[in-house]
């Protein structure tokens, strides 16, 4: 990991008041230097999560949602990745300017991550009990025996039946849903303040998905954790999120509280996504489809990255990159938490 120059101005630690966000990402950029050129995967992302809050990051593959999460966790491979600018503040401290070992103390203990594919994220040659216990042995220096007892407790917590009997089983002996529960247990082990869940249920069936999301929500309430949920499923987002950030081509194109976003999208991309969900009254009709393809990040279109696919695109969209505008009511009164990166957000939201 690159250690960034310590002499740079470090923002003072916040007072830790109740309103201060747990995690704040400010103007984050991530690039990958490849043989074909520089891929700008994340281009100035800002978001924040408070304790007990769920932020859903919605986007298609290649939109930069997972890369942002990996940058927060500090698990990006650098090189080829590079973070040319930006800040990631955890309780007011910039994690990008921390020493590697300091950051290591946060990872797992304060911020934990749940990965998408539980089968490939667990080590197939170690028992799940050993892998769960590793958290306690490494971070808290518990003995093997104590660690195993704690692992059984954890497996009980995530409702794995017969935990004591299964603690020595290997990952392949569990079903997909149970494996994902083990991933959740591992993330919860040290009772972190923030959990990042990267597509936690994408590989699961709907009935199991419902079980896992339920469990996650219950544990979040119990521990009052912040949750960043990365997904492309508009249904899951509607069920659990408090606020939403929609990403497209490495930028946040819209931010809104959950109820607001579904009722009145302020960006044509969000509107397109919502319109392309099959609805009952549209049976037999053509589905609305966003034309074209997601952009190649090696050659992001000039101006607004969405302009080649946007039905409302004008000349200004092809030349000027829209900033993240504050969205207001037609009479100018504020809509807290709403932003849209569209030159024509007024037309999009207010018709």
């Amino acid at each position: 990991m690159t250690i960034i120059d310590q002499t740079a101005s470090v923002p003072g630690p916040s007072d830790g008041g109740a309103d201060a966000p747990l995690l704040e990402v400010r103007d984050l950029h991530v690039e990958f230097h490849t043989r074909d050129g520089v891929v700008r995967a994340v281009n100035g992302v800002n978001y924040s999560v408070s304790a007990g809050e769920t932020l859903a990051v919605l986007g298609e593959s290649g939109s930069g949602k997972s890369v942002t999460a990996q940058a927060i966790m500090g698990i990006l491979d650098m090189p080829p990745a590079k973070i040319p600018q930006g800040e990631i503040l955890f309780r007011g401290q910039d994690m990008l300017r921390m020493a590697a070992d300091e950051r290591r103390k946060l990872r797992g203990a304060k911020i934990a991550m749940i990965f998408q594919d539980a089968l490939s994220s667990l080590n197939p040659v170690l028992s799940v009990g050993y892998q769960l216990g590793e958290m306690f042995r490494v971070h808290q220096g518990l003995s093997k025996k104590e660690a195993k007892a704690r692992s059984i407790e954890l497996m009980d917590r995530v409702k794995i039946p017969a935990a004591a009997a299964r603690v020595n089983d290997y990952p392949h002996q569990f079903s997909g849903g149970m494996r994902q529960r083990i991933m959740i247990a591992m993330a919860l082990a040290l009772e972190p303040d923030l959990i990042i869940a990267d597509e936690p249920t994408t590989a699961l069936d709907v009935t199991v998905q419902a079980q896992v999301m339920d469990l996650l929500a219950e544990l979040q309430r119990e521990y009052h954790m912040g949750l960043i949920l990365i997904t492309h499923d508009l249904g899951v987002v509607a069920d659990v999120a408090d606020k939403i950030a929609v990403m497209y081509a490495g930028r946040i194109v819209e931010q809104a509280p959950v109820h607001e976003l579904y009722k009145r999208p302020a960006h044509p991309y969000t509107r397109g996504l919502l319109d392309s969900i099959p609805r009952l009254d549209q049976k037999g009709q053509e589905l609305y489809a966003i034309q074209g393809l997601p952009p190649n990040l090696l050659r992001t279109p000039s101006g607004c990255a969405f302009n080649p696919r946007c039905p409302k695109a004008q000349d200004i969209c092809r030349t000027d990159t829209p900033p993240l505008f504050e969205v207001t009511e037609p009479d100018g009164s504020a809509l807290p938490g709403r932003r849209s990166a569209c030159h024509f957000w007024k037309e999009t939201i207010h018709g």
Partner: protein
Amino acid sequence: MAEIRKDEAVDATPNVTEVDVVDAATEDAAVVALDKRVDRGEPILQVRNLKKHFPLTQGVLFKRQIGAVKAVDGVSFDLYQGETLGIVGESGCGKSTVAKLLMNLERATAGEVFYKGQDITKLSGRALKAVRRNIQMVFQDPYTSLNPRMTVGDIIGETFDIHPESAPKGDRRRRVQDLLDVVGLNPEYINRYPHQFSGGQRQRIGIARGLALNPEVIICDEPVSALDVSVQAQVINLMEKLQDEFDLSYIFIAHDLSIVRHISDRVGVMYLGKIAEIGTDVQIYDHPTHPYTQALLSAVPVPDPDSRDHRERIILTGDVPSPANPPSGCSFRTRCWKAQDKCAQEAPLLAIPERFKGADGPAAHESACHFAEEKDVVHAA
């Protein structure tokens, strides 16, 4: 449809099932029968008690069979000309095995698949080849189902090498370009390789390959689940357009229930190798009577945050049992909240439940449950 040349070599593959030796005359008759068109509203494909058991063996030299994975265990349904039949279910319920059996890519353990009255599980040689021309498949993963070393032209044109009667040699390139145009790709892309296309475009290539031989039935095994949300709608629209244009019948296998509802005329719900419930889209989605269908529908996240607080959700406990050792009686009873002693002893048959028999309402459709009861979970407030 083109005629089959008489001098064509008969497929030499021995027929593995115990079928009477097919002589040339009956084979000719079979091929002729397959060329007839089926009227709209008539069944084009009839599946009867179809089973596929994969043997579990032990030992190296003398492989003893110690059991069987009952991937498909007695499935019956009809596919009518011009309709779309959706098949939904969780992973491992046998959806994809059904697709392979319908294509005759797997030999059925028991049961029949009648295509225009011919049992295709018993066919071989020329007659089987003629069937295969008429039933085509679109696969789930557009990244692995296209050969990376072949150009798009070769991938689609390969179908004409296998069925040379369907397009004259000199005409093939033009046919491939026409097909690319039909599925919304630039015909000039004919010399490109699969890696030069995005996921949605690749799925269009897969669809073009499926269409190449003018089939009557296309079996789509999860055709959009590997695609990005914004691209899924494009592919679904394309498939609906092609269905109207070429009068196709679809079997649409998917786990996304809202997409299945959008495209299907009828829907079958599968659980552990059996069909739990089958009916029209309104019957299944608005008037489900099987508890599994109800649980499945209630678990689907609804993209409307206002509904989340007052929606009734049935959260099933546990996982799908292993198809190698399914529960006795009703296979769903281990996760069912209505299960009683009867469910463990007697396997319920797929039929219109007794209590709805006289009724004319939408609840009167086939459901394999002893205690079938109507419950609207989608609109439950």
